[in-house]
């Protein structure tokens, strides 16, 4: 059982993150991963880049808490969360969540759980920049609603 969290400006490598979850880990037969990326449009206006702000110190703590909550709820091995901050371009990866477990349902559900809480609890804010200017992304009701199933 281990949790690893990173908040970083640099890009992450999905293959390397997967290798980190698996390395020497023969007890967990199931690994679920989620990657969120910058789309080239959002709500019909073109997005050419994005600035991701966060609350240093609180962010890491919240991500750690979410991962530990998932570990208490499911029989999980490793949990890894990586979230980028700073300037991101269209197509860039933003977030990686990886969960290992002996069984696939636990891994997949825990991965969805971590993403749902990250979306509504972790102090990150996105500002999109496109040809129409820049604007802060608004929180979506559907993200709050997604918590109800947990």
């Amino acid at each position, binding site marked *: 059982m281990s949790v690893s969290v990173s908040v970083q400006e640099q890009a992450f490598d999905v293959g390397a993150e997967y290798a980190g979850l698996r390395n020497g880990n023969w007890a967990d037969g199931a690994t679920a991963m989620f990657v969120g990326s910058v789309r080239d449009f959002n709500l019909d206006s073109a997005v050419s880049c994005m600035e991701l*702000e*966060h*609350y240093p*110190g*609180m962010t890491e703590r919240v991500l750690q808490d979410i991962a530990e909550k998932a570990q208490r709820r499911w029989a999980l091995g490793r949990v890894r969360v990586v979230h980028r901050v700073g300037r991101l371009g269209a197509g860039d990866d933003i977030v990686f969540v990886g969960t290992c477990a002996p069984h696939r349902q636990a891994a997949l559900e825990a991965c969805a759980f971590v993403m749902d809480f*990250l979306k509504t609890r972790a102090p990150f*804010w*996105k500002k999109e920049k496109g040809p129409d200017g820049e604007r802060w992304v608004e*929180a979506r009701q559907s993200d709050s609603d997604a918590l109800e199933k947990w």
Partner: protein
Amino acid sequence: MIRVLFFASLREQLDCAELQVNPGECGTLAELREQLSGRGESWRRALADPSLQAALNREVASGEATLNSGDEVAFFPPVTGG
């Protein structure tokens, strides 16, 4: 002193990322918010937003939370990461 932080659109509306307040001037998070609202029209308007969230020492906190010297308080809009 109490350190007060503002993030994202709220920071831009207030044109202020951080300030220090004297703990004698506010007992709770709600009182601090009200006191800050008195700093001017842009403060009153921005802090009246009911969707704003607050954290005390890096944990989400409600208005009744009591403040002490050395605390770190933050106000911010709903989060949009991931």
